[in-house]
């Protein structure tokens, strides 16, 4: 049981730690950009502090130690004792990276020391020491006397010195409390010096071994507030001891310990024997697996959402009780009122469904927040000046979708930075401002979320893309392609235009993987570009994977679901100009183009005359349109996607099945795979 609880705590800590690291990173990046207002510094400091606190409690000692040094540095910045230097931010950022890695190692149960741990620790200390030297030159006042520190002790979170005087009554142990444990807990709050007073210990002959006669004074240097300390003594304060907590040494002999000394003593106590080890590559998969596990298991939900749910369930119960009164009543039921209540209940249930779905929704900022760092590091490496702007980071997306979109997003951003945006000289030549602009924009567009990655770079060099594509056999030399089709060639497997393979991009694996990953999420990705002006990549994603907006269609008395997202238009067959082209199959004319047509009845070998059908649904998949002939359109409805694979197997052409309102099962057509199937069966129209 105890183990279980600890694991649970660890899980919560790890998750919070991840969040705090993100806060820390964002704050540091802003600091790097020259921001240094008190709010920001406090926020960063608090994040570091929370990590340290949690890590120390749960025994992640190296995590706690490193954060401690970061915290020291940050505290000096916060209290105005040192300015925010670029170099310091750099060190802090690299410490942050190491913290992340240590965290991953800890999750994987690897407690060996990180290779970068000692060097960074030294750097941080040097940095602090350098700052201290600077201080001494300008300001000879000792640390704890400076007004800045005074101010912080007033503040809940501030680092300061407290004197805790703890005089247990004689009977404290009889009541089951161990004074030593309490003292140790106080000591654990930070750096401390403890004085033991044995004045009250009586003569041996009078000593009662079950009594406690000693008292302690702990001089505590920490950011713990008085409340934190009183909490430790919560059970004993009232009846079992005298407790005084003050900022002044009650023994009236103020001995302030210099900061350096404390740091050393602290290190000597918590320093574990140095184990020579590196994070070996073998650790990687393990780490990744552990990380994935942590990501899979929990979700943090804002209390607002939960309150919404509770309110709705309340409504549901009230309406339900009204309805049961109707069914119990013996007299004639007022049908109108009954119908009204039923409608209300229906509304409640729909709202409840929406709210429950919202529980899984997270704002896109979770994904966007990781990008500033990437852009910063990459632009440095590529020697480009790039400004990243995000819009619509509050747009919410299903957690699964959000997690799966992270990698493609990173890839696309890297790509824009590497290929799209030019260096300052090239930009100057093109008459553009030297700083390139990368815009990430998210928005809702008709039941889908659209994420756009817009850069004002050089755009796609169509000639080069086309030549490369011919060279690598993606297309043949005599293929006639529209501009848009050429642009989208970069998503073809094995395609890359980078002349040199850099570690940023250029290996030609990637864009096709990006497209496939997005397609796996039922999403679509498209690129459009204006040479010299820039490129827009837009990703269209469903709000959630579990529910789909579907069009119920009927063929041969069987109902199928078509995802609404894929439907472009539905036309009556008489108006669709369906014609048979020898050796090609059927085509129809739509917006000036000839599209291949498949007859669902024929393709699925359903009963009836294969050429029966009244409507042609034009669906889009991977930028290509095809027409699907069906009998009838029944209506739109949201369907819950059920997998076929669990008990059966994947069926080509179908994304899964769903349970209809009458309890029957309907298959969900999957236009992309369906189109491939269809086009394979019927040779594509030229």
């Amino acid at each position: 049981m105890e183990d279980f609880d600890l694991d649970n705590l660890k899980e919560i800590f790890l998750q919070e730690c991840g969040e705090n690291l993100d806060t820390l990173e964002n704050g540091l990046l802003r600091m790097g950009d020259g921001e240094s207002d008190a709010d920001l510094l406090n926020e960063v400091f608090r994040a570091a502090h929370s990590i340290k606190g949690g890590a120390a409690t749960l025994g992640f000692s190296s995590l706690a130690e490193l954060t401690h040094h970061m915290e020291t540095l940050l505290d000096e910045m916060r209290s105005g004792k040192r300015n925010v230097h670029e170099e310091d931010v750099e060190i802090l950022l690299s410490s942050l990276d190491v913290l992340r890695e240590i965290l991953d190692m800890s999750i994987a149960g690897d407690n060996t020391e990180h290779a970068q741990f000692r060097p960074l620790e030294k750097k941080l200390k040097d940095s602090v020491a350098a700052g201290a030297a600077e201080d001494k030159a300008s300001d000879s006042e000792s640390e704890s006397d400076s007004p800045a520190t005074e101010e912080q002790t007033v503040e809940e979170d501030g680092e300061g010195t407290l004197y805790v005087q703890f005089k247990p009554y004689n009977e404290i142990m009889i009541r089951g409390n161990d004074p030593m444990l309490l003292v140790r807990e106080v000591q654990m709050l930070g750096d401390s010096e403890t004085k033991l007073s044995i004045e009250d210990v009586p003569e041996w002959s009078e000593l009662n071994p079950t009594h406690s006669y000693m008292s302690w004074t702990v001089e505590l240097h920490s950011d713990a507030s008085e409340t934190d300390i009183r909490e430790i003594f919560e059970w004993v304060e009232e009846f079992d001891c005298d407790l005084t907590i003050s900022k002044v040494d009650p023994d009236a002999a103020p001995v302030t310990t210099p900061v350096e000394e404390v740091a050393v003593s602290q290190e000597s106590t918590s320093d574990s024997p140095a184990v020579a080890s590196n994070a070996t590559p073998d650790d990687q998969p393990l780490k990744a697996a552990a990380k994935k596990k942590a990501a899979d298991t929990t979700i943090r939900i804002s209390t607002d959402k939960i309150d919404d749910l509770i309110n709705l369930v309340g409504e549901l119960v009230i309406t339900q009780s009204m309805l049961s009164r109707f069914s119990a009543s013996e007299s004639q039921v007022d049908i109108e009122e009954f119908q009204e209540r039923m409608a209300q209940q229906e509304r409640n249930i729909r709202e409840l469904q929406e709210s429950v779905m919202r529980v899984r929704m997270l704002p896109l900022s979770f994904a966007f927040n990781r990008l500033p760092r990437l852009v910063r590091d990459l632009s440095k490496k590529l020697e480009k000046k790039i400004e990243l702007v995000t819009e619509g980071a509050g747009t919410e997306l299903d957690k699964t979708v959000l997690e799966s979109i992270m990698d493609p997003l990173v890839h696309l951003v890297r790509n824009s930075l590497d290929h799209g945006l030019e260096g300052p000289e090239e930009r100057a030549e093109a008459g553009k401002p030297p700083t390139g602009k990368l815009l990430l924009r998210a928005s809702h567009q008709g039941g889908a979320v659209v994420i756009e990655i817009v850069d004002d770079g050089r755009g796609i060099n169509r000639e080069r893309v086309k030549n490369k594509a011919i060279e690598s056999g993606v297309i043949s030399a005599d293929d006639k392609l529209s501009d848009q089709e050429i642009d989208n060639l970069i998503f073809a497997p094995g395609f890359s235009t980078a002349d040199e393979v850099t570690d940023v991009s250029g290996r030609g694996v990637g864009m096709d993987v990006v497209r496939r990953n997005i397609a796996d999420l039922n999403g679509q990705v498209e690129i459009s570009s204006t040479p010299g002006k820039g490129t827009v990549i837009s990703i269209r994603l469903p709000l959630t994977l579990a529910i789909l907006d579907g069009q119920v269609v009927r063929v041969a008395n069987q109902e199928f679901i078509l995802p609404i997202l894929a439907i472009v238009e539905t036309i009556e067959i008489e108006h669709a100009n369906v014609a048979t082209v020898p050796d090609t199959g059927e085509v129809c004319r739509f917006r000036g183009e000839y599209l291949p047509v498949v007859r669902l009845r024929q393709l699925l070998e359903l009963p009836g005359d294969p050429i029966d059908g009244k409507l042609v649904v034009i669906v889009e998949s991977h930028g290509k349109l095809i027409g699907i002939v069906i009998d009838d359109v029944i209506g739109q409805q949201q369907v819950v996607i059920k997998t076929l694979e669990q008990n059966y197997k994947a069926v080509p052409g179908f994304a899964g099945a769903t349970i209809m309102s009458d309890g029957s099962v309907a298959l969900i057509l999957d236009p992309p795979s369906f189109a491939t199937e269809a086009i394979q069966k019927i040779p594509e129209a030229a």
Partner: protein
Amino acid sequence: MINQAEAEVSTDIEHQEDGQQFLAFLLANEEYAVDILKVQEIKSWGPVTPIPASPDYMRGIINLRGTVVPVIDLRLRFGIAAKDPDLTTAVIIARTFSDKGERYVGLVVDEVADVYFLNEAEIQNRKDVSAAISGEYVQGLSQVKDQMVIVVDLDLIVRSSLADFEGEEIE
């Protein structure tokens, strides 16, 4: 032919005096039996949603409390002439294990007959059965009240039925 999974399961079972329980069902007036521990439940016949491009013995899919379960027509699977469903037609929901974990599959039978206690010793391990079905699914034969019962291997039926058109190797 007792396969691995079968063997493992049967060692777990506490053998009573009377032996293991088997669920008997009828197909074209012949009596078959399957290990009752592999039966999740029995449903009456209801409408199924056909799956395109599947073998004829795959009748389709049904909704079993929110999960989608495929239904195999055992008559067609065993090569017996098809029969229209009537009032006694039942769907035995089998619970088997695949590498993906638990798997539920429905089996259409003419009629559910009885539950028998059979001793392993009573089940003659015979392949040369004169029954209408092919011998590969037959685990053995038994005699109940002068009536012959064909004990079939549920796991194997399910596995081979789903594997047949997947091109998977049968272990």
